[in-house]
């Protein structure tokens, strides 16, 4: 569809300007990318209100499996646990005695025992034991269960919401993306690679590095550039873009003239359907390529505020961007493949895992430099191209929310 328009790809047509006239086109002020005061408003108006993606349920398959997630922007830590009734719940990681953390890292347990004075909670959050209880004064144990955080599941993804009463359900927040991604075979896949970095970059500026293709020809000039670019699309413009209320989605096509390297050729023949060139096999996967663009490579799906869920033929990956302060972000990425049926599949998956990881290292290379630039005092605004409309959308959604619009 959009892809076979040579004018759209090589010419001067501004496809997103026409498709999304409500999105501004002028320069964007830098304050949202550098200001602690602005981050404070993002904390109150966004991170305390939205459903936030915490990870996959495969991480906690058995009763009593748990993991702790520290959410620095909210100055809090939660424990996410699968109870004896199989339900996944989230609790503040805070003992009701004197506030000590009741768990760390990840593991499996029947009870959480506070390391300070030995108060015991079960995996459904009920208080089960207070050491030397008679020494307390009028202690009402029925009111001392762990404080629970709203927790909902969608397609195996765990989301939590820190609002007292969430303004919308998880499904409402996911909106069109939940429909688009509903049938993607998430449950058939398992974690194959996972990486992270804590870098000096604002969480939106960091996310922007992963939601446009304009950087591909330069940042990835040594690697995946030619897979996406080539004569038809030298600047890796997106094949299609969908902007929703707060979420967004865009599709990239691959370069049909791309010549596979030996490891990529091997991975394609020995494996299942793997990244480079797999699109050329024209395999149909449910839940991807919503506008049926030719030469489909992958979709970037941005779940507002801080999660990208990118889907393709035979794999998906997740990016999380967690603000620590206005100019520091913890980024974590993970990639998922079908459970390898044999050694050939496993070897071929490792081809993608190694190349994804190395290209992500290229992606993050510019973030600290960009942040230093916007903080240098020499800039008042930055500029986004038509092909960077997704970055502009994130900026606009954030500014509306911090200004009190819902």
């Amino acid at each position, binding site marked *: 569809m959009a892809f076979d328009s040579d004018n759209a790809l090589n010419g001067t047509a501004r496809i997103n300007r026409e498709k999304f006239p409500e999105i501004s086109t002028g320069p964007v002020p830098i304050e949202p990318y550098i200001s602690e005061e602005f981050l404070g408003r993002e904390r109150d108006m966004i991170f305390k209100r939205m459903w936030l993606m915490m990870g996959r349920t495969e991480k906690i398959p058995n009763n009593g499996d748990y993991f702790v997630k520290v959410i620095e922007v909210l100055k809090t830590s939660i424990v996410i646990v699968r109870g004896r009734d199989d339900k996944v719940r989230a609790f503040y990681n805070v003992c009701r005695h004197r506030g000590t953390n009741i768990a760390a890292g990840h593991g499996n347990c029947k009870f959480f025992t506070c390391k300070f004075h030995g108060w015991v909670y079960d995996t459904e959050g009920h208080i089960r034991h207070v050491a030397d209880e008679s020494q307390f004064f009028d202690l009402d144990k029925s009111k001392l269960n762990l404080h629970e955080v709203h927790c909902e599941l969608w397609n195996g993804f765990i989301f939590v919401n820190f609002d007292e009463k969430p303004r919308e359900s998880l499904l409402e927040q996911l909106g069109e993306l939940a429909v688009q991604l509903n049938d993607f075979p998430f449950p058939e896949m398992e974690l194959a690679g996972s*990486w992270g970095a804590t870098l000096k970059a604002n969480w939106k500026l960091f996310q922007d590095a992963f939601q446009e293709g304009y950087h591909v020809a330069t940042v990835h000039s040594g690697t995946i550039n030619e897979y996406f670019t080539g004569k038809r699309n030298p600047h890796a413009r997106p094949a299609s873009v969908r902007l929703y209320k707060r979420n967004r989605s865009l599709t990239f096509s691959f370069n049909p003239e791309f010549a596979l390297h030996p490891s990529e050729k091997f991975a394609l023949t020995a494996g299942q359907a793997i990244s480079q060139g797999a699109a050329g096999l024209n395999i149909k996967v449910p839940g991807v390529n919503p506008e049926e663009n030719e030469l489909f490579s992958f979709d970037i799906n941005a779940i507002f505020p801080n999660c990208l869920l990118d889907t393709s033929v035979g794999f998906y990956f997740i990016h999380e961007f967690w603000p620590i302060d206005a100019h520091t972000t913890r980024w974590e990425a993970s990639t998922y493949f079908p459970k390898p049926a044999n050694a050939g599949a496993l*070897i071929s998956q490792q081809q993608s895992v190694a190349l994804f990881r190395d290209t992500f*290292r290229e992606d993050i290379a510019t973030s600290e430099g960009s942040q230093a630039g916007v903080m240098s005092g020499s800039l008042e605004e930055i500029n986004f191209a038509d092909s960077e409309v997704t970055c502009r959308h994130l900026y606009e959604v954030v500014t509306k929310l911090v200004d009190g619009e819902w």
Partner: protein
Amino acid sequence: MTNNALPRGFEDLAEFVPDWLHATEIERNRFRVAQPLAELKRFYNAMMPRLDGISSFLNDFPLHAMPRDCANLLELALMTMEVAPAVEYYNNPDVPESVEYEKFDILPVRQKYTVVESNPNTNE
């Protein structure tokens, strides 16, 4: 069978055992970036033409019960995939343009194969 054995037919790759055997992505990547490019190329050139044969040979063994010699061969193949971007793209052991290596965390992932230390079906 010694821990350093390779299955029959793959003995010519013995010079890479045990140095190039690493079970996790973290270890494989650390090893890769510490090798000179010429060594990476030597390994890649020895392994790449053999990968189709290695893959079809190993496909006869279930991932949940790999004999030690097969697991060794599998780890050489996984290392080849780790080395591939350095040889095919970068012509450099590490990613040339990125944040410092120490700032990038490779996080643990469950190992996808299990080694059975003695197996009567191989090297009988």
